């Protein structure tokens, strides 16, 4: 029996909720053959504003959790992605990947989450230090989260590229607002749906789909965003992003030149890039 196709209309992920865009607009998500597979919410600067507000609200509580607990939650995200591997595989295949490659990409995304989950209660020991100083003091350097981090996700490699940037940002206690791949948005919202069931506190990860051009300038200039990960920004946009970011002395992390090999893109330095080193002098009893 032929039946009407039920296509999904995806929504945004803000503060743990799935609202429609305040504009009420959607745009078609196409697969690599140009067929409409779903509709996506077209996020605007006002949605961005709400997302930053949610991220700011969530940040102190997320940072106050123990690294161990943040690791548990990242691991839980990995479990949920593994659980839905088929759905993620299908979402990745829309971008033209074959079945085997899609399976590989999902598996790598899961492994990446687990890898960063392991760092949650270890990076502070590796990045921090007891500094030798002359004088009767303990001089301790500890990494602290930067705050609210905006992530401009890579256009290609929509799942692994996204996970590879989100995990190192949140593992240290940052919260994030992600501008998802505009061309292949499906995996990002599928990931949001997995996160909503994975104990991630509301507002720690916020994901916006829609035209980046309307949101990137406002993300870069937003004074309540402390850093921007510009890995997914067009090279032509970088100059404007850095200029806008300068007004609030916001950190901008530029992509490395050339194509990124996402299979290899994991490093503790990706965590360090979104931390601030706090150094404390403490008198030593004599």
């Amino acid at each position: 029996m032929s039946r009407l196709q039920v296509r999904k209309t995806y929504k945004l992920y803000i503060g743990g909720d799935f609202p429609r865009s305040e504009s009420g607009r959607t745009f078609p998500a196409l697969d690599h053959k140009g067929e409409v597979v779903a509709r996506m919410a077209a996020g605007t600067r006002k949605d961005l504003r709400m997302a930053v507000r949610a991220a700011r609200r969530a940040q102190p509580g997320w940072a106050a959790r123990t690294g161990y607990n943040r690791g548990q939650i990242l691991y839980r995200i990995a479990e949920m992605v593994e659980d839905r591997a088929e759905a993620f595989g299908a979402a990745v295949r829309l971008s033209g990947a074959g079945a085997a490659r899609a399976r590989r990409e999902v598996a790598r995304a899961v492994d990446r989450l687990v890898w960063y989950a392991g760092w949650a209660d270890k990076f502070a020991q590796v990045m921090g230090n007891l500094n030798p100083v002359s004088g009767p003091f303990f001089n301790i350097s500890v990494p602290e989260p930067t705050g609210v981090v905006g992530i401009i996700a890579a256009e290609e490699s929509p799942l692994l590229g996204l996970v590879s940037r989100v995990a190192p940002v949140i593992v240290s206690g940052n919260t994030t607002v992600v501008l998802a791949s505009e061309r292949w948005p499906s995996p990002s919202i599928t990931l949001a749906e997995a996160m909503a069931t994975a104990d991630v506190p509301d507002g720690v990860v916020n994901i916006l789909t829609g035209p980046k051009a309307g949101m990137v300038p406002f993300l870069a200039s937003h004074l309540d965003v402390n850093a921007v990960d510009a890995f997914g920004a067009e090279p032509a946009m970088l100059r404007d992003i850095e200029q806008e970011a300068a007004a609030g002395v916001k950190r901008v992390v530029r992509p490395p030149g050339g194509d990124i090999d996402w299979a290899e893109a994991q490093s503790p330095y990706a965590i360090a890039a979104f931390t601030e080193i706090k150094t404390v002098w403490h008198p030593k009893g004599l």
Partner: protein
Amino acid sequence: MSSPATTTPASPILGPSVTPRTIDSFLRAVPSVDEVGVAERAGALATRSVKRESKLAALHLAIRMCDLTTLEGRDTPGKVIQLASKAIRPDPTDPDIPSVAALCVYPNMVPYAVEALAGAGAGTANGTATGSGVAVASVATYFPSGQAPLDIKTGEVAWAVAAGATEIDMVINRGAFLSGDHLRVHDEIVAVKEACGPAHLKVILETGELSTFDNVRRASMLAMAAGADFIKTSTGKVKPAATLPVTLVMLEAIRDFHAASGTAVGMKPAGGISTAKVAIRYLVLLAETLGSDWLTPDRFRFGASSLLNDLLMQIRWLRENRYQSPDYFTRD
């Protein structure tokens, strides 16, 4: 109904001798409120979009209407002095930002507020005694409960006025109102008004404790008939505090009272108004109910503490086209 213990002075609205009978017939004539209609109208007006130049004008007006408020047990002279400088110059980086209308404090803090507001600027705008043009408002009459003997309440008012407050925010006797002793509520307002002398009197109804819109409307009429210069929704210590529907009910009472007596009474919603967006909704409600004559700090005030920062943030957003962070504004 208790018998009148004291002789009540003549009222311009209620006639030469105010008795329980005249009060009750006055209040019986107050029409009841259509609750659904009020919610509908307040809701519909809240959807109005105010953009760019109009929004900027509304934000500036809202700042001029602010009663910057600190009413906490832990208030110190230092905090009041700091807040006073903020009242005069809300945004030190932008000289175009006007001062707020008044600084609202507990009686104990009035001398510090008067001193801090006396210095800067010249002239006495809005009839205030301070050199900066920012008035000193004081809550009194055993705020927020009002549960004290009348002579203590009037004594507190007289003390605050003598210390330099030019505006007094009193609370009505809700216990008496809810038990039907309207004359007592009326007489207390009259007595406090007398203790105020030249100071303006704002009468707090504490709408969150009055339970029904009918009560709010009757209490509004009663307060205005007793001589209130302003009627105010709430102390900010009781939830719910100011809401759009309850403000609409009070604005309509002001309109009716103005039509009946020719006296223009002001309105002050207070408590829970913390964003510029909501403040603009109040201004829309005000303009649609009472007209542009009321769009002035002499007839409308916001009782607020955190609202001011949001107004400043919105103004800077309009100026810079860049979303703002509370990190760049004072933490009071």
